[in-house]
């Protein structure tokens, strides 16, 4: 098990991205109108997107358990899991800010990046601003 075929990592990354993007498109997550319809409890509420999460978790919850029972992944020598365990101020403030942005435009990172290929100008603008926000965070809080 020591010799890992690292050449397959890019291929499996591409395949995962492809499946993920198809999931976002088929589920309707790609559509800001659908997202706002889900977040608009006081309007004409559309619960569809709750089912996207339920469908996703119905797979990942049991399957992650099986995968993480293995000593290592197929093409890497270890699993790269988030190290932080405590609920801190950054986690909660960051999530709060993300939710505000999500509610304003109905776009989150996955659908926005997938939607780039449709060349929709609003999606392009959103992705540029999102990268700007990431750089802004790096400049103000990460680079010390």
């Amino acid at each position, binding site marked *: 098990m020591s010799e890992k075929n690292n050449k*397959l990592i*890019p291929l*499996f*990354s*591409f*395949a*995962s991205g492809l499946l*993920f993007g*198809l999931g976002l498109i*088929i*589920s309707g997550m*790609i*559509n800001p109108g*659908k*997202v*706002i319809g889900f*977040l608009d409890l006081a309007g*004409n509420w559309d*619960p*569809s997107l709750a089912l*996207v999460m339920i*469908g*996703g978790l*119905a*797979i*990942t919850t049991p399957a*992650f358990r099986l995968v*993480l029972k293995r000593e290592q*992944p197929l*093409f890497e020598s270890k699993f790269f*899991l988030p190290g*932080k365990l405590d609920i801190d101020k950054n*986690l*909660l403030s*960051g*999530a*709060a*800010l*993300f*939710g505000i*942005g*999500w509610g304003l435009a109905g*776009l*989150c*990172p996955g659908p926005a990046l997938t*939607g*780039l*290929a*449709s060349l*929709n100008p609003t999606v392009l*603008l*959103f992705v*540029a*601003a*999102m990268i*700007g*926000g*990431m750089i802004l965070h*790096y400049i103000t809080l*990460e680079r010390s």
Partner: protein
Amino acid sequence: MEDFTPFSALIGGALIGVSATLFLWANGRIAGISGILGGLIFAPKSEFTWRLLFLLGLLSAMVTYMLLSGGAPDIQIQSTPVVTILAGLFVGFGTRMGSGCTSGHGICGIARFSKRSFSATAVFMLTGFITVYVSRHLLGLGL
């Protein structure tokens, strides 16, 4: 509720779950989109190729869909350019600060019973609901 699309939502969600599982099984990593994109900008060069290929996979999904169906899926824009820029800045800044977005926390983190991901998902859902209420019903910012 005439827009309710339970079957495509469940099938699409399951595909996302299969993708995240494949990614963890093969490459040992969490399929968090904001993290993959952020790493493309800030992480070491050795991490560049797989991140870029994951993003190319996302773009190829759209191209594949457009080739097969003969057009783009519904992308009903909900924001003016100024609000879009503001939203993008919030999403970019917030996902870096909060270590993840809908995919990393909502689909992958909750599946691992991560307390951080449960908390983050509850918070971004809550502020998402509040933002839509305030912007659509109080301020009239929607399109």
